[in-house]
């Protein structure tokens, strides 16, 4: 079967599967972490690490789809951080081909289909590459399955990393093809793959695969000219994406993240104990299982698991590697070694990481390539085994001994790294995991020893065994949720959406992280796009210096909020209070258990409203109940009390406990927390030396209007906060992502400030004349008294420059392609042309005339019929113009649409029919 057929059937199959599958394959249940979306008792999210897809990628896609459907290219995001470049943020991956599925199909289908397509294409490309390096069909299938369900691909499936990474085997495949036949179309394909790589939306991953690919090319091809050609075409491919890359570079130059990374050294490394995860990936638990203890592995599960492709490939490769030392295997072994040393920062290669750009990129993710390398060696081993009639019994015995050895050795290793105490509680889980991995390894080795290419059943068993070590372990990594769980609308959202100018600020706990607002269609003061405009972020940090352990703003004054144009605040505590910390150290975990925690403090002459503590629930459902008492230390009278249901507690979050009492100045009081039920599980509090972190919240009028209140969740309106300062009587005429047009009065000459971020490309015209902008994070300018028309617009030179780069690269590639087609294939083309013309000449002129006349009449009638049957509705574009079209509400664009489509329709159908007719006649 041809590759195109595979792709076609794959496409139909995946779309059909995504359609019939109930619910959505998307971790929206992670919203349960927040009180803002889960006011009832806490529901445990399936996987605590899948935050970015919900809080970043999905809101971006929703925004993109909305903009594209309205006929706009989303170059700017006006809803976050007082505005930010959007197309320039590569992670949005607007033009990545797989994301087109999202724009065309309903969300339910595309959420499932896109990850499946990624797996499909990655396995296909891996298979093609493995076949090109002379691996057998079965070995290629086995190995491509291993990498497609490997640790890296499974855990990063919803991230743009895998958009780019899936192209890696395709690059290698094309390189191998070029090695055997140096042809222009293959080089153009390389350029196209790099182009896709940029569109994929993760420059860091592209950088990693590009470095490895270029070194691979240099070593494999060993011809300077071919290597240079490869470099040139890769550059052209990257240049093709200039329209996205140049704005990105501009954004990077102005970004907070670049300044931040330049100011810090890259110390992100993989901890050495994590090497165990190459053998047993879920040894320290996993976020999608009931057990997950990040503190044991000292690293994020997603980062640690990247090199895992199954124990079987590792063991089998280790056993037979000495028999297979050819150039390719050596190359991959060296690659694996270098990446290993780099990822775990072993000297002397660790020096590389001190040089740019390695010192700015997260090189630990190179271990994905390490995993891929193991899979390649594994495929070569399986091919080698297939070509041998029988593996010697000794070797087979050796393999089994290795398995048993690993089983025995693993436990002491755990002890060696002093994690056994914490792991002791989960020994059943760990033993079960070891058992699955080692049993499947044993089964694989057992049947591999009896391998015969004719036995389908043996092959199937081998596939299943390997799948049980890879796909089966991660199959539930991304949860399947009900369709209704997809960004539900909470009551408080309806309240603030009533205000058309809503601009939200989050204070305290993460309740409504930036980007989520894109789903609900209002503004957020902050942005989370991994770049952030430096000047804005610095101004923000300066204005809101009080941050909590989440990096969130912990307190905000009205004046500061007004400066950023915030109209509403979502907070975990009552902002109309004064907060006093009586114990501010958060460095230790205090397990509550059956302990009674006490903390004493001197009262102020105020009314206590509540206390605020920080709780941990270890990401599990706890059934305990905690009593909270406020005691007068002198009289021992209980002034106030409350009880917490542990199911209301969330991990690492502030918990607000109402405790109302009038306190006296200088008097000593005591807050007591105790577990009142002897339940099998309990929570912990953050604090220090058995003293929990406690804040007292005294009633005070700060001027905020409380709009909504729930469990650990408050919504306030900021009084008199406007988007525009210094102007009166503002009448908005046009307001979209890149334009703001309004009239305003100015009583006295002064400075006007529009709380939109200042960024290259933005300009302001007052009465159609450009004005100078002041320094600062926002757009502000001088304005004279009187009535004015003020126009603010975005004209990004970087995008124009990017388009020029893209067009130039495209033209160059087209020229190269054209020269190839007309140069190298001239004879072939001439012969095809001759065949056609012979057929054409056999037909009389009149026949030709009538052929075109009839087909053109037919296509015209068909077009008219389509136009009548599927009458497209056109809206009047937003404009301030007064002309015949706007006066008569006539959407002018329909004429251009009908002309272009109609002309193509009438021309293409007859010509295509004519070509087919001549072709058939020639045959």
């Amino acid at each position, binding site marked *: 079967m041809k590759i195109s057929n595979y792709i076609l059937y794959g496409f139909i199959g995946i779309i059909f599967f995504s359609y019939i599958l109930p619910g959505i394959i998307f971790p929206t249940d992670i919203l349960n972490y927040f009180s803002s979306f889960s006011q009832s008792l806490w529901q445990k999210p399936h996987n605590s690490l899948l935050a970015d897809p919900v809080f970043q990628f999905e809101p971006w896609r929703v925004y993109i789809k909305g903009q594209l459907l309205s006929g706009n290219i989303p170059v700017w995001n006006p809803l976050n951080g007082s505005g930010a470049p959007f197309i320039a943020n590569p992670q949005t991956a607007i033009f990545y081909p797989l994301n087109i599925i999202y724009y065309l199909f309903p969300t339910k289908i595309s959420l499932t289909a896109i990850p499946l397509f990624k797996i499909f294409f990655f396995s296909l490309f891996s298979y093609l590459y493995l076949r090109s390096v002379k691996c057998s069909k079965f070995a290629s299938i086995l190995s491509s399955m291993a990498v497609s369900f490997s640790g890296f691909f499974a855990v990063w499936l919803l991230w743009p990393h895998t958009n780019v990474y899936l192209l890696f085997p395709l690059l290698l495949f094309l390189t191998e093809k070029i090695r055997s036949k140096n042809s222009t179309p293959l080089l153009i394909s390389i350029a196209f793959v790099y182009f896709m790589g940029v569109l994929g939306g993760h420059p860091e991953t592209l950088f990693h695969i590009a470095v490895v690919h270029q070194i691979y090319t240099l070593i494999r091809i060993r011809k300077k000219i071919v290597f240079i050609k490869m470099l040139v075409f890769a550059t052209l491919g990257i240049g093709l994406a200039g329209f996205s890359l140049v704005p990105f570079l501009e954004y990077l130059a102005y970004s907070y993240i670049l300044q931040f990374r330049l100011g810090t050294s890259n110390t992100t490394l993989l901890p050495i104990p994590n090497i165990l995860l190459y053998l047993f990936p879920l040894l320290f638990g996993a976020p999608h299982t009931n057990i997950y203890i990040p503190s044991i592995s000292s690293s994020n599960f997603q980062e640690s698991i990247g090199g895992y492709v199954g124990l079987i490939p590792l063991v089998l490769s280790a056993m037979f590697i000495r028999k297979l030392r050819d150039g390719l295997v050596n190359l991959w072994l060296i690659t694996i070694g270098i990446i290993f040393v780099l990822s775990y920062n072993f000297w002397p290669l660790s020096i590389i990481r001190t040089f740019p750009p390695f010192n700015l990129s997260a090189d630990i993710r190179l271990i994905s390539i390490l995993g891929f390398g193991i899979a390649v060696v594994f495929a070569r081993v399986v091919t080698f085994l297939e070509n041998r009639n029988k593996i010697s019994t000794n070797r087979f015995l050796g393999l089994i001994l290795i398995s048993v050895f690993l089983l025995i050795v693993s436990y002491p290793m755990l002890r060696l790294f002093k994690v056994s105490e914490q792991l002791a509680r989960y020994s059943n889980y760990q033993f079960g995991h070891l058992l699955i991995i080692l049993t499947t390894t044993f089964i694989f080795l057992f049947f591999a020893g009896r391998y015969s290419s004719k036995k389908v059943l043996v092959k199937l068993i081998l596939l299943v065994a390997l799948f049980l070590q890879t796909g089966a372990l991660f199959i539930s990594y991304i949860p399947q949720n009900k369709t209704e769980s997809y960004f539900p609308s909470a009551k408080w959202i309806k309240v603030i959406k009533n205000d058309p100018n809503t601009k939200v600020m989050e204070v305290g706990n993460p309740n409504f992280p930036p980007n989520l607002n894109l789903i609900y269609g209002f503004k957020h003061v902050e942005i989370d796009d991994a770049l952030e405009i430096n000047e804005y972020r610095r101004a923000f940090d300066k204005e809101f210096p009080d941050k909590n352990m989440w990096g969130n703003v912990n307190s905000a004054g009205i004046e500061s909020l007004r400066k950023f144009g915030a109209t509403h605040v979502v907070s975990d505590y009552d902002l109309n209070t004064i907060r006093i910390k009586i114990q501010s150290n958060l460095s230790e975990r205090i397990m509550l258990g059956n302990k009674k925690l006490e903390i004493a403090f001197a009262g102020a002459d105020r009314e206590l409203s509540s206390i605020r503590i920080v709780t941990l629930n270890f990401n599990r459902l706890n059934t305990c109940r905690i009593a909270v008492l406020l005691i007068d230390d002198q009289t021992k009278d209980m002034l106030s009390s409350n009880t917490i249901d542990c199911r209301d507690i969330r991990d690492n979050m502030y918990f607000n406990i109402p405790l109302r009492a009038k306190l006296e100045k200088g008097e000593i009081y005591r807050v007591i927390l105790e577990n009142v039920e002897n339940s099998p599980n309990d929570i912990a509090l953050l604090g220090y030396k058995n003293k929990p972190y406690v804040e007292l919240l005294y009633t005070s009028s700060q001027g905020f209007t409380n709009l909504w209140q729930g469990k650990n969740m408050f919504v306030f309106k900021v009084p008199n906060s406007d988007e525009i300062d210094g102007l009166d009587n503002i009448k908005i*005429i046009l307001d979209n992502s890149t334009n703001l*047009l309004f*009239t305003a009065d100015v009583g006295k000459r002064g400075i006007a400030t529009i709380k939109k971020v200042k960024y290259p490309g933005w300009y302001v*015209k007052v*009465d*159609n004349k450009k004005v100078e902008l002041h320094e600062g994070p926002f757009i502000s300018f001088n304005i004279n008294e009187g009535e*004015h*028309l003020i*126009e603010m617009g975005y004209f990004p030179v970087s995008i124009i420059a990017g388009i020029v780069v893209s067009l130039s690269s495209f*033209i160059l590639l*087209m*020229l190269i392609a*054209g*020269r190839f*087609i*007309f*140069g190298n294939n001239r004879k072939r083309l001439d012969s095809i*042309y*001759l065949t*056609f*013309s012979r057929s*054409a*000449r056999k037909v009389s*002129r*009149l026949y*030709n*005339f009538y052929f*075109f006349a009839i087909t*053109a009449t037919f296509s015209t009638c068909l077009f*008219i019929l389509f*136009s*009548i049957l599927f009458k497209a509705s056109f809206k*009047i*574009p937003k*404009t*301030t*113009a*007064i*002309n*015949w*079209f*706007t*006066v*008569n509400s*006539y*959407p*002018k*664009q329909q*004429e*251009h649409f009908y*002309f272009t489509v109609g*002309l193509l329709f*009438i*021309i293409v159908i*007859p*010509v295509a029919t*004519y070509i087919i007719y*001549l072709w058939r006649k020639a045959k």
Partner: protein
Amino acid sequence: MEKSKIVYIISVFLISLIPIFFGSLLFVSPFFGDINLIDEGQFLAWANHMFHGKLMYKDIYITYGPLYVYPVFLIVKFVEDSVFAFRFYSIALNGVLGILSVSLLLRRINLSLFSKITILLLITLIPGITIRLVPAILAIFFITGRRSSLNNFLLGVVSAMSLLISQEIGVFVGMISMMSIFFGVIQEKRIREIIFRIVNFFVGFFIISSLFFVWSSYEGWFESYLLVSRDVLTSFSGINLPNGKAFPNLISNFTSITSFQGMLRAAVSKDILMYSTILLYIITFFFLVYKFAVREFLSQHMTITYINILGIFLFALIIGRAGNFFLMYTPAIIILVFFAENIIRSLDFKRRIELAHLIIIFILICLFIIRTFVIFRPHFYQLPTSIKAVYATYETSARVGNINISDGQTAYIEMLQDYIAKNTNDNDYIFFWSNEPMIYFLSDRQNPTAYDLPYIANTIEKRFEIVASLKESRPKFIFYNTRSWAVDEVDNKKRLPEVTSYVNLNYKKCDIIGNVEIYCRAMK
């Protein structure tokens, strides 16, 4: 030199004289015919403002390229400040240059002398050729010629000049130039030759561009030119277009017909004529595909291909502005005559069926030409008077020159000239709220705004710009001719509501002469 070539050159020369005596396009004969206060008026108003120190694009909103407008200023300054001088220039520029460029292009097509002269006569008599098309025609001429260094250099020159004459045609010329370079690079085996050609093209392009850059930067309007050009290219192709109505919809036109007579009328209507042009381009496309298929695609067919592309491009422009339908005639006429001659040459008249086809096609071609002539019949009615006017001298109003215009228009002009001269001095601003820019030239007064045709300022930014200019310069009088052309039936009071409310608030109607309302500043 061959006899036929000599005859051709003489014919071209004689045909070039026709527009000078008879007129061309929208401008009637230099000697005869009422002044077009709008189309002719805008050029002379711009020239007059420039004469008084205003800068193109910076102080005046001009929708054409500088090379189209600046010569008018030079004529007003150095030759004669009259409408007559301008007419002579515009006819020479539009008519004569148009004829010369088409006559050059016809060298690339294998046609008989008779056919060539027919084409030149038709494009002269049916007003269609304009200076805006000349660079496009020349570009096709150079592209389809020998791939010499000179041709590539001249193609670069023409490409740059076309941008400076008309932004839209400039884009088209740029596109086809790039296409030709692209195909050249693909087909040419010698890399050196490719580089040489590209360098020649860009040298030509950059010489003109650099000269323009130096000139416009020296005078200080380069950036303004870029901004206005962007505005023209974007607003004139979108919803912000100042003038233009819906393109005729044939389906609704025909479905609303109830009688046979109505059907006949619709069949020969102007709308059908517009559709027949695009039909012609589609047929030409099929013809070229057929020629290619049977391996009979000659170099002249490449020329026809480019002319066809030009025709489709112009038609796409007309979609936006149906009023500019005259633009479509030049390529259509060349293709029609080419077809007519080819059909006559290739058909076997002895075969009845082929003869029948020939007759049908010929009838259709004739119908097209006759219908076109009928549309422009007023133009031909004036023929005897136009010729007579050449020999006469006239006493006309100031700055009109030796043109025979109607008594009504003379009276109108003199009335306004008289009023303005008596009530204003040289430094006073006046503002024509209706679309009659010619009065600025005829009365030699300055417009306080950048818009001599106020209807063009149809977006709110431009409307506010007018208001700001009126506030700043406080014109002494604002004139509004109630009978003047309300573009697309939307008069300027409706189009420019901010201006209307400003005038109503700050001015009062102090006089009415004829159909002209005169507003003067209200005392506050």
